[in-house]
């Protein structure tokens, strides 16, 4: 899937590049089509619907964050409006006997997101940077407050629900069985991802990158950065709306929290952790996020805390996210220093895991004392049992953290040295890092 790396320019008129492009997307299509034969259970298909929706949402967010350099705190507004319009459409179609089948409903959601973005975007994108972020948050707060007032449309705290099987059948499909919903979602994921990928390779997509890098200079090659940001904003709204509509189809309902700040936060987390500088980054991030939020909650009651800390650590130590960090290793791979770097990782992993383990032990113990104080002190977190009331637990946690920290510092120095050496070799040979 290296073809999905948007930063690497596809060379002009190289036939191989075009072939690789079709091969990669063809493979994605085949995988999507084959998925239900491999994972047959309804629950894994439901999970996929969640993941697919999250992928479109994160990719749409990355049009703003990664491609255009706009950090929005209110992207869920366009997702939510897509969801609500989808639900209303799904209710109106059977009521008026309209000949619109379910697979077209995401389009309605997309148009709703687009129209709202057209409306709010002009002022929001007048400025980039921090001011844009502040305005996006203001618009989001406004939207949530309005949603709670306009109960006829948004259904108040309860939201509104629908029944997707009431729509006219589509070649005999009523979208009752999960596998039919799966194919609907998979189709839209494929089309949306392909469209958003194509967007990065158009003149507008390129100029978005230029606006991200240097909005000032863009003006001196003839472009108005405000219009560029505005168009990017509208596209982001369109695809967020499609994602929202797909969610509404999966859940057969929409709720004001779909517009809200938890949803906006989730898309920021997953996009950034996945990596904003690579097209596939947000896809990885969305899968990672949905997976963690479904699975971590089985292991610990405070998974949100760990997730927030993970996010902070990524911003602090791996600003490229998962995707960017992986891609960073192309350079040592080319100069032949990758083996050594991986070895230093393996060494550093031991004390780092001790540090993390000690920290988690301490947190879980504190959680036991503050949240579940009256329960049995012999608790279990991440499959490990321990006695939260015993002083031994504290000693172990403290020791793990201390040793992990001080030994970890030494071993990470080894990592830094290995990287420095690789960089030196690379610059001697003129290989870009």
């Amino acid at each position, binding site marked *: 899937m290296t073809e999905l790396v948007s930063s690497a320019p596809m060379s002009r008129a190289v036939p191989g590049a075009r072939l690789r492009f079709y091969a990669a997307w063809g493979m994605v299509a085949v995988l999507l089509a084959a998925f239900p034969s491999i994972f047959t259970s309804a629950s894994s298909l439901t999970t996929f619907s969640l993941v697919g929706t999250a992928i479109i949402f994160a990719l749409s967010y990355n049009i703003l964050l990664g491609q255009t350099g706009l950090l929005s705190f209110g992207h869920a507004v366009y997702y939510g409006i897509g969801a609500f319009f989808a639900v209303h459409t799904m209710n109106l179609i059977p009521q008026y006997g309209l000949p619109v089948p379910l697979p077209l409903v995401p389009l309605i959601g997309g148009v709703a997101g687009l129209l709202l973005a057209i409306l709010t975007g002009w002022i929001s994108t007048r400025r980039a940077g921090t001011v844009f972020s502040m305005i996006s948050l*203001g618009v989001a707060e406004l939207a949530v407050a309005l949603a709670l007032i306009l109960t006829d449309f948004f259904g108040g705290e309860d939201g509104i629900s629908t029944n997707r099987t009431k729509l006219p059948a589509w070649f005999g499909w009523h979208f009752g069985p999960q596998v039919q919903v799966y194919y609907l979602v998979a189709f839209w994921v494929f089309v949306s991802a392909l469209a958003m990928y194509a967007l990065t390779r158009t003149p507008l997509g390129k100029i978005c990158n230029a606006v991200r890098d240097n909005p000032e200079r863009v003006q001196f090659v003839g472009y108005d950065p405000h219009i560029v940001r505005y168009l990017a904003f509208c596209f982001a709204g369109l695809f967020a709306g499609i994602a929202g509509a797909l969610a509404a189809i999966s859940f057969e309902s929409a709720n004001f929290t779909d517009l809200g700040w938890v949803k906006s936060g989730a898309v920021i987390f997953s996009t950034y952790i996945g990596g904003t500088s690579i097209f596939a980054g947000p896809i990885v991030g969305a899968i990672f996020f949905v997976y963690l939020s479904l699975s971590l909650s089985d292991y610990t009651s405070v998974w949100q805390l760990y997730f*927030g800390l993970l996010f902070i650590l990524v911003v602090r130590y791996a600003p490229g996210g998962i995707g960017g960090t992986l891609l960073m290793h192309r350079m040592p791979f080319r100069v032949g220093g990758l083996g050594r770097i991986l070895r230093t990782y393996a060494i550093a992993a031991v004390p780092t895991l001790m540090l993390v383990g000690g920290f988690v032990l301490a947190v879980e113990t504190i959680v036991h004392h503050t949240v579940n104080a009256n329960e049995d002190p012999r608790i279990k977190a991440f499959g490990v049992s321990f006695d939260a009331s015993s002083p031994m637990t504290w000693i172990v946690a403290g020791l793990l953290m201390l040793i992990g920290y001080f030994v970890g510092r030494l071993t990470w120095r080894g990592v830094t040295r290995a990287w420095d050496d690789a960089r030196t070799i690379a610059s001697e040979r003129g290989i870009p890092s």
Partner: protein
Amino acid sequence: MLELVIISALNGVLYGLLLFLMASGLTVVFSMLGVLNFAHAGFYMLGAFFGFQISKWFGFWWALLLAPIIVGLIGAAVERFALRDIHRSGHVAELLFTFGLAYVIEEVVQIVWGKDPVDYRGPPSLDFPAFSIFSTNYPSYKVFMFAISVAIFVALLIVIKRSRIGLVVQASLTHPQMVAHLGHNVGLVFTLVFGVGIGLAALAGVIAGPILQTQSNMAASLIALLFVIIVVGGLGSLAGAFVASLLIGLIQTFAVSLDGSLASLFGPLSPDAPQFLIRNIWTVTIAQVAPIIPYALLILVLILRPMGLFGTRET
């Protein structure tokens, strides 16, 4: 009616002063360091909870002294050990970091103190009515809040107008790009300013906690309000932040105490009129609209006066 107006005005000004305690730190840090601290309201919340905890152990007056200092030190540490390094990755990374921090603070507060409001009370020595207006007793704790806010406000003014650091802060407000040329100890100044800004937010938390609810969700809605204040006031303008704080404080307080609606003005909606959505708009009370007003104001200001009420730089 007059009674309501006077009480609401007092409460509105008080709320405005509290907002200014937070907005002032936020806007100074933004101008000097270029960091928009998303976690600013989170530190306000930490102030309230630390205040609650310390006053439970040692009494309110110790809380008033210690909580802002402790939280301020935490803030200074965040600047020194995290933000300074992230600065190299640009403003988006800084903003994302503080966003994550706000999230983590909320989670930590939830873990330690739970999701329900805690029983945080002011000192018993201030538990008497200061004066009464018509039939309403005005609590002396609120008078005390007034005194603290005004005292801090005056102290800030003196520091900014008279001290060397104050001059640096002033210069940075109008010419943010100049701050880089201030000399070798500029890092220390940054840490100090960041810590003090956070400390002020925490102080607001300590004194507001007993009156407003001390609860783990108190930060989330506040930060957006603070952003509105610094944009509406004009980025880099302390005077603007002050006026906008009072404005928002008054609007919010008055709006909440009014329950007029279109229906109460013009009578109930005729059944022949279109109902969908119109019905919602017709019957919504001003009190219910209150949360929207600041954001509507934000958008209005951005359209009509993009540099904010007192701003010199275009936002």
